[in-house]
């Protein structure tokens, strides 16, 4: 199989928020920058982000980055690195104001300043009372942000390669990253993008789960490529779930439905939340509701032929209330559940929403790996930002509106670090490492020539169902162990997928098979890491992690206050310490996470 080589100063994979922000930095500095993207930039999943972006501007009331930092550390259940968290919270105002200058249409106060709204978990004075910290553009914050940054990139001559699938990293014998091998979907042509700086901004991987709010493009391409190149994946056991996604579809049913009086019921029609949370009932926190739903399903009280969902009932509410206060829910029920929610309850399950783990990075956006006794040695030429990266600012759970902040701060930071490296240290292209290019080509060749192999769609479905059942929102020791075995078996089938369509032009079957190669790495990393971590922390909740005075809510700081590193080679696990020391302020000391 042949390929051509194109040289750039920098190549960025992914054109969502993080990729676009990094590209601005490099192009503005005058470096020749290529951005590869599977879909047109403004169709990246960042568009789906509605909530806003956190910044302690204090436009409506007093606020401070230190309070934001406290909320983030607490949200992370103390697994977040406090240096990176301080860095992010201190940089928030700067990146939001920059975005405003790029033309982002933020909602405004009468005095012209950016309007800020309250959001769950945002508190003033170290957890004392709610504060208005989220900056938004109506319910289209992500969409507006992408447009503003795309326009800026066009202005500074970033070169976009739209509808290109990145295949694999180019990494030489020294471990340095020299670019990526990629395929033009239009022609099937393979090109090596030879670069002095390679930035991954490929987003999340939520499609490893059967029920996911993530769009189909979220297939963990960056994580798969990194894992195949020998880079570990960090803290992959931590996934944020939303309690109410439409069963079988994943589309999110807003918490407002329960706020307006919606009731969760099991197969017997019982309002089961009364048993789990006698006071708050259906309005208990996300974690509590998700766990209760999973227990009902696991104990055989789920609904439907497979007893694998529960019901969200709003049939007792006046139709005019539903249509007025919950616009869109009626249509979602009809479109994705085949249910008229005015007359029948909606089938719902806890649904995967956001990936806290990813490619290990530091606050400079450099990818870091253990080497020579240093747990966080930068990989030369390699950077990552956004949901695909683990800085780690979200730790074991993410604070609302910190996802958009993460991609702005670390997109910029990765771009800035790359600019500094290009100016000061990496002035010439290193010779290409043909071995890693050959490996990428062999993967495509294998797929083109596979006979009597596994069906891509069926294999992906088997992986998604296994992950949902064995490593969902509430985890059980035996189920996790069984799940590891099952996912390893499915990985064997992924290595033998077969496609019938061998055409070159826009061969979507081939793309989906290549995406599955990436998804399975994420699935393995998730379930192996989750199986090993025998405590409960943040979004990783295990039935067998006991609540004791030493391990409150099952959190075991003595043994598990550490980051997981999963290596593809042999499914090996390693660990590294959490950075408890911030950059300038005192450590936010461990305590029980309670709201």
């Amino acid at each position, binding site marked *: 199989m042949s390929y051509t080589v194109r040289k750039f100063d920098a190549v960025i994979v992914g054109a969502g928020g993080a990729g676009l922000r990094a590209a601005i930095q490099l192009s503005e500095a005058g470096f020749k920058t290529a951005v590869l993207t599977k879909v047109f930039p*403004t169709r990246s999943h960042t568009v789906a982000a509605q909530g806003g972006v956190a910044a302690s501007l204090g436009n409506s009331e007093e606020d401070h980055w230190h309070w934001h930092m406290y909320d983030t550390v607490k949200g992370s259940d103390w697994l977040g690195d406090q240096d990176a968290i301080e860095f992010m919270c201190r940089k928030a105002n700067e990146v939001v104001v920059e975005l405003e200058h790029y033309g982002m249409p933020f909602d405004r106060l009468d005095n012209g300043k950016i309007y800020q709204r309250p959001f769950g978990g945002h508190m003033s004075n170290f957890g004392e009372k709610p504060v208005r910290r989220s900056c938004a553009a109506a319910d289209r914050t992500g*969409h507006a942000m992408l447009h503003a940054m795309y326009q800026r990139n066009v202005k500074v001559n970033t070169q976009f390669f739209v509808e290109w699938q990145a295949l694999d990293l180019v990494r030489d014998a020294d471990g340095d990253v020299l670019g990526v091998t990629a395929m033009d979907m239009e022609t099937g042509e393979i090109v090596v993008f030879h670069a002095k700086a390679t930035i991954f901004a490929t987003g999340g991987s939520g499609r490893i789960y059967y029920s996911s709010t993530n769009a189909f*493009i979220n297939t963990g391409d960056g994580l798969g490529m990194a894992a195949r190149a020998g880079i570990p994946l960090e803290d992959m056991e931590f996934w944020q779930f939303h309690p109410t996604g439409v069963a079988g*579809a994943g*589309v999110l049913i807003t918490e407002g439905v329960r706020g307006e009086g919606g009731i969760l019921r099991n197969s017997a029609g019982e309002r089961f939340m009364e048993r789990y949370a006698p006071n708050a009932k259906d309005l208990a926190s996300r974690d509590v509701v998700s766990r209760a739903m999973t227990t009902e399903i696991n104990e055989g009280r789920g609904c439907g032929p497979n007893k694998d969902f529960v019901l969200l009932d709003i049939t007792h509410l006046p139709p005019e209330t539903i249509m007025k206060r919950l616009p*869109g829910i009626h249509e979602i029920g009809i*479109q994705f559940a085949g249910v008229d929610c005015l007359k029948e309850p909606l089938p719902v399950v806890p649904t995967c929403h956001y990936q806290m783990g990813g490619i290990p990075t530091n606050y400079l956006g450099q990818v870091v790996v253990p080497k020579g006794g240093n747990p966080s040695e930068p990989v030369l030429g390699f950077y990552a930002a956004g949901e695909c990266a683990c800085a780690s600012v979200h730790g074991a759970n993410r604070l609302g509106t910190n996802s958009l902040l993460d991609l702005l701060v670390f997109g910029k930071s990765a771009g800035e670090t790359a600019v500094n490296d290009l100016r000061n240290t990496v002035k010439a292209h290193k010779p290409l490492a043909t071995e890693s290019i050959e490996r990428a080509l062999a993967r495509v060749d294998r797929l083109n020539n596979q006979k009597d192999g596994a069906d891509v769609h069926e294999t992906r479905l088997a992986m998604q169902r296994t992950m949902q059942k064995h490593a969902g929102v509430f985890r059980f020791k035996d189920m996790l162990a069984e799940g590891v075995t099952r996912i390893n078996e499915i990985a064997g089938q992924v290595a033998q997928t077969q496609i019938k369509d061998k055409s070159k*032009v826009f061969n979507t079957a081939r793309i989906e098979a290549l995406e599955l190669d990436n998804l399975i790495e994420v699935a393995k990393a998730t379930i192996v890491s989750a199986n090993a971590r025998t405590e409960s922390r943040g979004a990783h909740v295990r039935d067998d992690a006991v609540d004791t005075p030493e391990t409150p809510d099952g959190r075991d700081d003595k043994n598990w206050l550490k980051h997981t590193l999963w290596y593809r080679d042999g499914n090996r696990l390693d660990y590294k310490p959490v950075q408890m020391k911030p950059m300038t302020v005192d450590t936010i000391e461990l305590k029980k996470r309670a709201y």
Partner: protein
Amino acid sequence: MDEERQARINRLKWHCRRALLELDLVFDRFWERYEGSLDEQGEAVLGALLELEDHELWALVSGRETTADPRQAAMIERLREVSPAANF
């Protein structure tokens, strides 16, 4: 199916990969039902709709907005169909 049509359909299918899950699901269902019967005019109408921003497209598909173009409206109806129309 001839190669040229297959390439056109594949391109359209890829352009149905969207930022919003809601649209991914709607298009998945659409292709299952209509891949065999989509004619060249239908391809053109769908192609034009796919140029829209995701939020605009979802507003049409979810019935919050309407379009004055009768051919687009007919395509939107097909995208909205929960069960396939008997005689299409």
